[in-house]
């Protein structure tokens, strides 16, 4: 039936049909209970309508078994919803290992994306069909929210830290991207499009018109430009901890607390080096706040992550 306008959103990710199945379960439960209550009210209101002014209905105190029944049955149903919903939720926030990682930076009022191979986009995002894509997102100013209705995923994008989300597009096409967290005057203009391409098409898109400098290489040149090498080079002065093999490891801090070296930790160490001092080192690193952009930070992180691979390769040799 074509009404000329949609009543249900497209399903364009592997997640969409799972979310919709749960949605329809809840719709079924809701329709049942709304139907039941409306029917009972209607039947009672007609059947027991007041026929004479002096009617004096028998009082009913209540029935314990009924109270128990209409507490326990809804409770059991909600627990099904809870578990089912939690399972999907966990999957939304646990990206597969092999996901293609794309960086997203939001600002009033635009979305910037950068692929690992270096291609940048504004208010557009090109992704291949059938491959998990993980987004590493941050904001330059206020809270935004990256929302892809056709994929059923949404995540707030915060200033000062990274949030992540992943999806696997299942159908080639063009889909809407909305900012879903109110972010100021042009909030409703902070929209874009996601182009889901067949893998071959995607490769073609990647090779066409790009700078050709990957995020890792861009990060490497920033690393050099800011003079990070001076202290953080393996076998150098060793005034700072070496970064090779750092990413994902547990770092022991001064005072003995451990911290996992994830993206947020690296970001903080660049912008606010004194917040967490690695055990055995002096707090001598200057802040790079104001010197490096959010995109630059993501490139630096990509570079530091790549040092893990280099280490692994060296070990293999």
């Amino acid at each position, binding site marked *: 039936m074509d009404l000329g306008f949609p009543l249900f959103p497209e399903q364009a990710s592997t997640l969409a049909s799972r979310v919709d199945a749960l949605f329809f379960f809840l719709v079924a439960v809701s329709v049942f209970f709304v139907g039941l209550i409306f029917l009972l009210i209607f039947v009672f209101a007609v059947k027991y309508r007041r026929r004479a002014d002096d009617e004096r209905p028998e009082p009913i105190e209540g029935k314990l078994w009924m109270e128990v029944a209409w507490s326990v049955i809804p409770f059991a149903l909600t627990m099904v*919803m809870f578990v089912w919903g939690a399972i999907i939720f966990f999957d939304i926030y646990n990206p597969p290992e092999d996901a293609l990682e794309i960086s997203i930076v939001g600002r009033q009022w635009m979305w910037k994306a950068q692929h690992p191979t270096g291609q940048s986009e504004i208010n557009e995002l090109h992704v291949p069909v059938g491959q998990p894509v993980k987004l590493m997102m941050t904001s330059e100013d206020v809270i935004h929210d990256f929302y892809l209705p056709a994929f059923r995923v949404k995540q707030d994008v915060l200033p000062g830290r990274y949030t992540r989300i992943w999806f696997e597009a299942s159908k080639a096409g063009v889909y809407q991207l909305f900012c879903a967290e109110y972010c100021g005057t042009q909030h409703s203009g902070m929209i874009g499009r996601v182009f889901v391409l067949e893998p071959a098409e995607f490769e073609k898109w990647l090779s066409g018109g790009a700078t050709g400098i990957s995020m890792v290489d861009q990060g490497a040149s920033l690393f050099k430009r800011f003079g990070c090498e001076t202290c953080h080079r393996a076998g150098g002065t060793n005034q700072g901890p070496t970064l090779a093999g750092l990413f994902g490891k547990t770092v022991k801090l001064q005072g003995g607390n451990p911290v996992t070296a994830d993206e947020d930790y690296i970001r903080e160490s660049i912008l606010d080096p004194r917040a967490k001092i690695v055990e055995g080192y002096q707090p001598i690193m200057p802040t790079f706040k104001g010197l490096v952009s959010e995109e630059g930070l993501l490139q630096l992180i990509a570079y530091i992550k790549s040092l893990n691979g280099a280490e692994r390769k060296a070990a293999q040799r």
Partner: protein
Amino acid sequence: MNVSEIERREHYLNVNYGIRSWLFTTDHKRIAWLYLLSVTVFFFIGGLFATLMRVELLTPQGDLVQAETYNKLFTMHGVTMVFFFLIPSIPAVLGNFLVPMMIGARDLAFPRLNLASWYIFIIGGAFTLMAAAAGGVDTGWTFYTPYSSIYSNTHVVLTVVGVFITGFSSILTGLNFIVTIHKMRAPGMTWFRLPLFIWAHYATSIIFILGTPVIAITLVLVGLERIFRLGIFDPALGGDPVLFQHLFWFYSHPAVYIMILPAMGVVSELIACFSRKRIFGYSVVAFASLAIAVIGFLVWGHHMFVSGQSVHASMIFSLLSFLVAIPSAIKVFNWTATLYKGSISYDAPMIYALGFIGLFTIGGLTGLFLATLGIDVHVHDTYFVVAHFHYIMVGGAVMGYLGGIHFWWPKMTGRTYPEVWARLAAVLIFVGFNLTFFPQFVLGYLGMPRRYHVYPPEFQVLNVMSTAGASILAVGYLLPLMYLIWSLRYGAVAGANPWRARGLEWQTPSPPPTENFDRTPVVTEGAYAYEKEPAEIYALRKPAHV
């Protein structure tokens, strides 16, 4: 009987005259009127903002107002309706009037504090209206940081000062109710003889007292960061923006129960009276109110499933949110069961009450979608949420409020409203409401984000339906305004107990004397003892007192 018979007797309305006798009154019934007038003004101001928004959304383009104006409209709509209409509406108007009367007391425990609460409310309201007049505020009623504390160029401080001040009015009202209910019940009025309206207000008062200080502190922090650049919420200053959301929702989710619990209390009274039966499972309904108030404090994180909070925290909040749904479901089932083998009449208040049950059921069930983690990720911050909370706040709280106003209007004024017009308005509101907000569920699942001034063209048809519904709703709201004012002068004389209701407030003349009761009533039976109604009352539809 003619009109002059109301005037022949001295009562709280004619005991003295003049503006000073109202502005310096400590009579809870007169203070209820002060609130009634004020919240009515705020309701129509908030409604005007909503009307402009709905007209703007007729077309996908931004053509009626600029983006900036639109953002201010939805912000002022939310601030006005939440803080200056919904929260005070039933407690401060009907609660003020009825809490002492229903328990057989002369007044609230602290009459002067009660008057002070109204002045505090008005001062807070004045600040907020000043902010609106000075150019408005555009942060959304949720004041999310760091937008509100750093980036917005509008009158944030003036607005939060208004909300901050008004909060104290809630706290003092809650305090007054709790002390009154504990200490001033008439002889024989034991806890389990109390009308459910009182239980609901007791639960609401707990939230007033425990929750409101938190929003007050939070708004102070927003002001401090905005004025002095203290780093509390803005990460650029070393703050945490998500901390704001925790603090804000710690109050603002329980605030939803501040709006709905009193409406549930009203509905219990109406269902009992118009089916002439005790509420099925009275004590279960009473404890359900307390359960909602208590568990309601532990579910705030369900507003933050996509905010970046820990996945494990989200799981706990999801579980607790399902738990808080159960007492609400229990209430709906008990109200419905009360109708069974009743003697049901369809006077306007009952139409509101039945409408409440229907709309609240839909609102409650759609709340389950939002508590479900996997679904909330998709519908969070879309029109699905907008539809859901309007079903609770407008379909629930406002229907309850209007039902209550109609039910107790004869008591408050001594006159009856025109029944035919009232039924028409109730039906118009029910139809208009559903047409306005049901399409928004569909829009939300389609993915239309809330707070969008401009939207993709495929969403237009549903938006046009919504605006059409809003115009019916507007007529539905204007009708009572007109006929209730009309009835003040031309309405038929009501008598002490036109509904043959059993509550203590009906056992004294309408309008009641300043002292409420000529003699302190002695209570010998539980609430809603309709089966014990003396037979002579049937023969005597006319009240005995006038």
